[in-house]
């Protein structure tokens, strides 16, 4: 694929940044032709990944969250969200629908939602080192609205 443009964001794992980060990434991605629906999909995916960094990766601390958003000529957007937090011991289990290690007000749906609103989801993680979640989405554009 041919890269057209790339955005990098680094910010603190504070919940107030959830809204900012999904707005920033979706606004950047909007240079590709996309429907309102697809813009919403991107916001949702970013919100899930960033929230996971805040509530899980840096559970009792504040760390940095690194986002790279790349847009490709073929109408594909790739978003990777990385943290240097606690890492995930069993990725397969973590990705199962409704699995959550926290309970309470968490429902264990984050990964299912990210999968459902993108075309591919890749999770790389190492305990004590951190986690990178990468999603790709092929945009159909406004014409398919």
């Amino acid at each position: 694929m041919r890269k057209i443009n790339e955005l990098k964001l680094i910010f603190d794992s504070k919940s107030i940044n959830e809204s900012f980060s999904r707005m920033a990434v979706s606004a950047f991605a909007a240079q590709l032709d996309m429907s309102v629906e697809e813009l919403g999909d991107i916001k949702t995916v970013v919100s899930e990944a960033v929230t996971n960094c805040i509530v899980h990766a840096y559970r009792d601390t504040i760390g940095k969250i690194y986002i790279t958003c790349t847009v490709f000529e073929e109408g594909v957007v790739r978003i990777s969200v990385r943290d240097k937090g606690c890492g995930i011991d069993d990725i397969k289990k973590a990705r199962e629908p409704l699995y959550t290690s926290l309970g309470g007000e968490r429902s264990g749906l984050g990964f299912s939602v990210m999968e459902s609103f993108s075309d591919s989801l890749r999770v790389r993680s190492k305990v004590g080192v951190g986690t990178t979640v990468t999603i790709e989405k092929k945009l159909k554009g406004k014409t398919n609205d």
Partner: protein
Amino acid sequence: MSVTIKNKSTVIYAFIKGEIDHHSAPEIRENIDDAILLYENAKLVVLDFGGVTFMDSSGVGLVMGRYRLASQQGKKIRVDNLSDRDFRIMKMSGIPKLAEINKRNEE
């Protein structure tokens, strides 16, 4: 983000406006829980998502948590006016088994 509570006979209505995420959820939750505990005679809690402009899985957690509290108080939960996307997210969870959920009329 804001929550407006209305009480009509045995029904509590919570009209939620704005974005629901992990950051905004606690305040929304407190407002609704206060109402659930205040109106002892209410039998039904309607969470109205008509004014919700964005929601992620935190919205599912919000409904699940209210379902738990309402059940303890002998009340039922209903979720109204969900956007197509939010309806789809709710359906991915166990919520449809616990509460009636309804879509928005989008013209």
